[in-house]
């Protein structure tokens, strides 16, 4: 170090000072650059960044409207909105994701599926500090556990929203349908129209099936808006302005929960459906298909396990038999054919035929059997209804001919869906010459008419159609279209005249004759539904039907015991009551129920009795 002393000290200091001065100037210049940059941002671009910062801070948020409630005719709640709580994570705030997830798992449990979905959601592009949902539908106990442990769980929060709930669960699953999260296809559809895009800007759920879908636009309501100040995580700190959303309209349906529950109870061990209609108003009192499903499962998203179980169930719980089940009407068609053939003058109430147990067309060797092998003997129309004589109707149908039968039956709504607000219903099938040519490229044979005479062959009806036709019969041909909706927001809907024409008979007395014949189906000792006499509280007019599931070949013995349960005949029953002044019309189908009188008819009777005995409540 001593060598320093030999140096030219002043030259050294001079050198250092000149270098320091140069750097000082550079520093000064660079500070100038910083000042220029700051001034550029803060003065020149001030307005741009002022706007950006305001847009960061202030958001216009649409507020979802409250979905309208749905009531039955007695004011019982069928669909409501309940708060549901979701567990959310802000990943940026979570210190250790794995530990946090394990902690939550120990505390309230998270499924593999939740974890998978979380991972998928985390991979999606999102704003920093935006919460991600980990679990839906927390119970109160789970919320309490999370809240108590929140200190150990930074970034974990519980968020509330209103979700649809169906307090009656399975009972109304098919008819009410359900709401579910708006899917991509529905979103695209909503986005095509500016108005619906605006209306659904805050909505997460949409009606997917049934009433929820049919009356979606009424139930939905109008969104509100709020101008809010949010932080970077989107958490609302202050509401600056607000316009409240308008809730959707509440709907009151004609449905009667008591009848619906009874139908569910009565059909509990069967596959089948029941439809009951108020004759004077067309109001659908009950529209039930068994088995059903819990619609609440679908609201926040059904799990794969639950969905597969429903889909793979051989009893097809997701299938709405009441409006989409296709059954041959079988003998329940006879009253309608009966009215037709008398009114067309093909036969009369006094004319008789002799039934030997079989029927043959001229020039044909094919034998059409009666269900009663030995035949009914001397039969008139009334007895043919009461005992469900097949041969009488083979004969009558052939006499009338398809060209006259077809338009007559169409008046009862067969082959069409005439219900005002039951969407997605199968229109049924009323066969005729035109139809056969189109679908089979074959002409209509007389044999087809024979089969149609007893409601077999090509014809297909839904339980809803059977009930509709029965109600029309009970109302003596005066059309009141079936409907589910009774009132919008408490305002009753006017009963609009439906497009269908009233049925004008040449002789109105034919209605009375048929009512009497159908009453005797129950009251006569030979009636096919005589079993109902045991609990007869009200006079009931009815008709049984037994629809074959497999064709029975000629001369083959029909042995139901040998057939597997699922190959047994379907049992059908239609009825209305009281006969003197019909109030309720009903159709019941019990799949593989075999005997209409023993299975389907008592179910119909119990519903009729409940309805007529106390229509003002329990």
């Amino acid at each position: 170090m001593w060598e320093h002393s030999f140096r030219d000290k002043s030259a050294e200091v001079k050198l250092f000072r000149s270098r320091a001065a140069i750097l000082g100037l550079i520093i000064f210049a660079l500070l100038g650059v910083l000042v220029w940059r700051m001034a550029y941002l803060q003065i020149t671009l001030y307005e741009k960044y002022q706007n950006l910062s305001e847009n960061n801070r202030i958001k216009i948020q649409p507020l979802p409207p409250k979905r309208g409630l749905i009531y039955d005719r007695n004011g019982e709640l069928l669909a409501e909105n309940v708060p549901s709580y979701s567990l959310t994570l802000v990943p940026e705030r979570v210190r250790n994701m794995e530990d946090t997830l394990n902690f939550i798992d120990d505390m309230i449990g998270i499924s593999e599926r939740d974890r998978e979905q979380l991972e998928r959601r985390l991979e999606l592009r999102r704003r920093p500090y935006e919460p991600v949902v980990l679990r839906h539908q927390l119970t109160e106990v789970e919320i309490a556990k999370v809240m108590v442990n929140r200190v150990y769980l930074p970034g974990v929060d519980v968020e509330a929203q209103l979700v649809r709930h169906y307090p009656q669960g399975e009972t109304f699953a098919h008819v009410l349908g359900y709401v579910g999260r708006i899917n991509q296809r529905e979103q695209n559809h909503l986005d095509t129209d500016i108005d619906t895009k605006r209306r659904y800007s805050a909505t997460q759920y949409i009606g997917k099936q049934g009433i929820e879908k049919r009356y979606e636009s009424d139930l939905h309501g109008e969104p509100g808006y709020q101008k809010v100040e949010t932080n970077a995580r989107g958490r609302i700190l202050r509401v600056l302005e607000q316009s409240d959303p308008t809730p959707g309209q509440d709907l009151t349906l004609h449905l009667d929960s008591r009848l619906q529950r009874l139908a569910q109870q009565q059909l509990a061990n069967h596959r089948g459906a029941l439809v009951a209609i108020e004759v004077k108003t067309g109001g659908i009192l009950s529209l039930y298909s068994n088995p059903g499903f819990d619609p609440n499962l679908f609201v926040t998203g059904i799990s794969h396990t639950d969905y597969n179980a429903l889909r793979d169930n051989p009893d097809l719980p997701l299938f709405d038999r009441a409006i989409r089940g296709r059954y041959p009407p079988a003998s329940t068609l006879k009253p309608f054919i009966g009215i037709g053939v008398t009114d067309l003058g093909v036969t009369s109430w006094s004319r008789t035929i002799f039934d030997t147990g079989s029927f043959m067309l001229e020039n044909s060797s094919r034998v059409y059997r009666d269900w009663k092998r030995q035949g009914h003997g001397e039969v008139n129309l009334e007895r043919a209804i009461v005992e469900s004589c097949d041969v009488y109707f083979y004969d009558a149908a052939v006499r009338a001919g398809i060209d006259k039968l077809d338009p007559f039956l169409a008046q009862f709504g067969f082959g069409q869906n005439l219900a005002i607000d039951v969407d997605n219903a199968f229109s049924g099938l009323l066969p005729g010459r035109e139809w056969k040519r189109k679908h089979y490229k074959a002409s209509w044979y007389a044999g087809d008419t024979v089969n149609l005479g007893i409601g077999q062959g090509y014809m297909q009806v839904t339980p809803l159609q059977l009930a509709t036709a029965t109600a029309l019969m009970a109302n003596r041909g005066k059309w009141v279209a079936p409907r589910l909706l009774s009132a919008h927001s408490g305002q009753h809907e006017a009963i609009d005249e439906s497009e269908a024409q009233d049925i004008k008979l040449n002789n109105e007395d034919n209605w009375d004759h048929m009512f009497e014949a159908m009453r005797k189906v129950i009251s006569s000792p030979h009636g096919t539904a005589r079993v109902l006499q045991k609990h007869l509280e009200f006079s009931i007019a009815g008709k049984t039907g037994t629809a074959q599931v497999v064709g029975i070949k000629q001369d083959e013995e029909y042995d139901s015991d040998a057939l597997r349960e699922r190959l047994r005949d379907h049992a059908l029953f239609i009825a209305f009551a009281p006969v003197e002044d019909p109030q309720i019309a009903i159709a019941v189908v019990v799949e593989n129920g075999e005997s209409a009188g023993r299975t389907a008819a008592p179910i119909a009777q119990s519903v009729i009795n409940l309805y007529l005995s106390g229509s003002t409540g329990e």
Partner: protein
Amino acid sequence: MSNSDFTRTLGSGIHPGFDRGKALFTRIHLDLLLVILLLVLCLAGLLILYTGSGRDTHMLVRQAVHMGIGLLGMGLAAQLPPRFYQMIAPWAYLLALVALISVLIAGVGAKGAQRWLALPGLPRFQPSELVKLILPLTVAWYMARRPVPPHITDLLKASGLIVIPTILILKQPDLGTSLLISASGLLVLFFAGMAWKLIGSLIAIVSACAPLMWFFVMHDYQKQRVLTFLNPESDPLGSGWNIIQSKTAIGSGGIEGKGFMQGTQSQLEFLPESHTDFIIAVLAEELGLIGVLLLLVLYFLIIFRCLVLSSRSETLFGRLLAGSLSVTFFIYVFVNIGMVSGILPVVGVPLPLVSYGGTSVVSLMTAFGLIMSMAIHQKR
């Protein structure tokens, strides 16, 4: 020199009380003016931190403690004579190399970078922080033993001293720190009187090597930062978020600012890292261009005072070390503000004495202690 009047004003007391205080400070090897300026900066830093951290009093107290420790470190460093530093320089350098190598072998860290060393019985620390002091110290020690202006062979040997730790830190990887450290070493060479021709060639070589760095040295995340710097709007929610939000905060502050603790960008948490690297944006948003200018003036005064003190040092070693540390301090300020305002790519450099962080505060204050030691100790 055009600013010599100013130098005299800053360098000499104008008030008798100030003179007495100055004399007292000189006895304990401190410079009153620099200490006052630093205290003002610390106080301003605490205020900005308070609003930048979202009124986190715990953080405020911890930072105040860091500053207290830093002041102690500064006082202590100022008491030790330059000779002591000259003596320990080579050993400190060797120790630093050992620490840097240990970090590469057994270091801990996050996001794919090993920067921390956890030794039993010691708090976790970043050896690269130590190197920020040790490298200029060592290069100054070496150059002070050589003739001035230096020969090219001496400069090459000194460059070797710079390159080794630079590469070790680059391997962690920590591009920002390695560049800052090599700059602090090169500054010593500059102050030592490195020929302008050599400086020109060095600049030319570095510019030529920059594209090679892109392909052979830089990691993907570092390239991403540069790309984001060039076009932040390409990824507004991802890597561009920080810079867009910080520019928005600065620009929306305007001339007068939105008011202390009234910044929407920072208080509503749109601005990330608002208590550490991006804290200048909080100041710019809340106190506007005026606040920024005041802070820049404060930094300028500190750096200017440091350069004055450096030139007062009696030894070449002292001048070289103090000069390098002073200008390095400015580089931190420039890189941080340049990065937050979007004229430099994002590298993790805190704003000196304002950003939250213990290591940085203590090592900076210690550096000021060194500068004062070099300037005020009289040769015996």
